[in-house]
């Protein structure tokens, strides 16, 4: 079917509008961050004025954003890896095994998705003050306090469960006939087959951990351990810091999520598709 010229123009207009609405607002943020002139609150320039990197320099070095960025990267790095591992193991049990109590476990895990986290702020803080078994040390005010609580995330468990359900039973049976044990089926059959799903879960997990605000706020006290979202909130209430610098710091905070999304985005649609199939 050939498209008429009017239809084509219409299409270009629609594309333009969509981009303007969804991406346009971010343009102003970029421009402000690279602008030397200070703006009035609530005012935006769409055209860059006196281009400068000074805002980024001040934010990155003088405001120690590099340090908070590093903290965030440590938390999100270990957090995402541990989360995906733990979720994959749990999903394997939920997707490929039949056992008593599976429904209860699923419901309990699901419940955590719907809990407003503010309500568990105080109990969670108290838990981090208790010494963990074996190491006999409380994790409060350590990186571990920001990492361990995000390792369990219902969303990634359910998404991986859906993907693992979709792996044909025959492949697993064939492997077992070849003498593979349970662990080998998981490692050599299931995991390689759901590699695209792992990409999706990594993106979601990364963004979720990256945006954590309440948790790092309550389980850490030292300023040297603050993550970027907490540091940003704290910079924002400081009257000595001009808006341009805060905007620059905000852009630095946005960058990693965007980068990880662009790197892994071909997996992204598949992940959401699994959600749709599951319903």
């Amino acid at each position: 079917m050939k498209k008429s010229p009017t239809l084509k123009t219409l299409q270009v207009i629609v594309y333009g509008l969509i981009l303007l609405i969804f991406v346009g607002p971010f343009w102003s943020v970029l421009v402000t961050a690279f602008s030397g002139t200070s703006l009035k609150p609530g005012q935006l320039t769409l055209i860059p004025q006196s281009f400068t990197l000074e805002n980024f320099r001040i934010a990155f070095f003088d405001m120690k954003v590099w340090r908070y960025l590093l903290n965030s990267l440590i938390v999100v790095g270990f957090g995402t890896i541990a989360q995906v591992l733990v979720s994959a193991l749990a999903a394997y049990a939920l997707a490929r095994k039949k056992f008593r109590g599976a429904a209860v476990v699923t419901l309990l895990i699901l419940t955590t998705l719907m809990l407003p986290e503010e309500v568990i702020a105080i109990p969670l803080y108290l838990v981090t003050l208790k010494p963990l078994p074996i190491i006999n040390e409380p994790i409060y005010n350590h990186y571990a306090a920001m990492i361990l609580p995000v390792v369990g995330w219902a969303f990634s468990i359910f998404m991986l469960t859906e993907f693992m359900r979709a792996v044909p039973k025959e492949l697993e049976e064939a492997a077992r006939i070849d003498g593979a044990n349970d662990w080998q089926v998981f490692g050599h059959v299931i995991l390689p087959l759901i590699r695209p799903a792992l990409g999706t879960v990594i993106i979601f997990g990364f963004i979720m951990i990256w945006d954590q605000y309440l948790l790092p706020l309550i389980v850490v006290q030292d300023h040297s351990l603050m993550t970027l979202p907490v540091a940003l909130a704290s910079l924002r209430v400081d009257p000595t810091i001009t808006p341009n610098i805060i905007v620059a710091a905000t852009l630095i905070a946005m960058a990693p999520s965007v980068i990880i999304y662009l790197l892994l985005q071909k997996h992204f649609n598949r992940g959401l598709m699994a959600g749709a199939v599951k319903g």
Partner: protein
Amino acid sequence: MKSKFGQLLLGGCLAVAVALPASAETITVWSRQTDQSISVLKAITDAFTKETGIKVETFNSGIDFEQRLARAAAARQLPDVVINDSSQVGSMRQMGILDPIDRTKLAGWKDVSDIAWQSAQDGQGKYYAVPISAQAFALFVRKDWREKLGLPVPKTWDDMRKLAEAFTHDDPDGNGKADTFGLAIPASTTRGYASWYMSHFLWQAGGGYLKKTKDGFLPILNTPEDAKALSFVRGLICDGLAQPGAVNATTGDTLPTFRSGQTGMLIDGPYDLGQIAKEPGLDKTEVDMLPAGPSGVAALAEGTSAYMLKGTTDKAAVMKFLDFLISPEGQKIGMNVGSDVTPLVRLPVNTTMDVLKIRKDPRWKVYQDTFLNYGHYMPAVPDWTSIRLLTGDGFNAILSQCQSDIPAQLADLNTKVAAELKKQGVLDPSYKE
């Protein structure tokens, strides 16, 4: 009553408490301030350590401060001393973390001005904190704008309104665009800012929040005086003389509007002088006393206090530190003269000191005069935060609905405040709806 829940909490926390080393000569101080201004507190604690040998560990935060205290209380992980707004005495008592202080045990207690001590007192005459800094509010005005338009220093509400109109409509910055506004108003419901901001105007009009009687408090929000104050401020907002978004703004939003030349008047404390000196600059601004309302000049008086928390292991060391904070030496370091970092001590509470001798800046005189002659503290009810939030919501509703019936809304608010006072057990029994 010892609850199961308390035991549950305790069980987890005792183990932690045991694990902590009990070092006798170290005290922990938490302060509600941002990273940029913590250096002043550090200077005080360094001098204190040098003099007494007692070490001080400090922690500061500009966000989440009261919540962090509440959590620390639940875990029995409280610091020894907290430095926070004087107005927080109610909410800290509500958390159950304050014991009354015997102020006569402090060597320098008599040097602290009576009006400052008022802020640390509950309704019954007990003291729960040591005031270390006082402040009042004054009006920052863009002098260059005002002189360019040939208008006088605002002395009354009328002057203020006329100046706001001129700043909004007569292009005071001469850029040919209608992008300036009369004054910056923080009237958000968040943390009760609307109530906090309206206080100056309520008292200027001759009204207020509560009347202290011998049997408690009576709400007086339904008075014509209060209605006058609200209708004046609402006029400024609804006629477009305040910065856009005033009804959602906090002080974090208003200071930048003045610094960037969006607004020409700002009611602010002396703590932002350093910021305003940097931008727009002291040559372009002046500090005037707040304008007189129908009942004359009035301004909110505030302060910073040091609180000794329950469960401190070394009371003697803490008392020494509190004494140091109100001593001339501690006060002087806290005033941080000769630097634009926000000072911890704004106006000294120690009456043996002369602010002008130390500051050498006549602007501070305006603040001191206002504090001593026209200052009003917020009422000393057990829990002011709840009433501030309640009236903040009520005032915000009036200020953001330009056509609403102010006396009716205030009457409604008055009833709600009475109910809250009753809940706190301090409503005068003679109150009638």
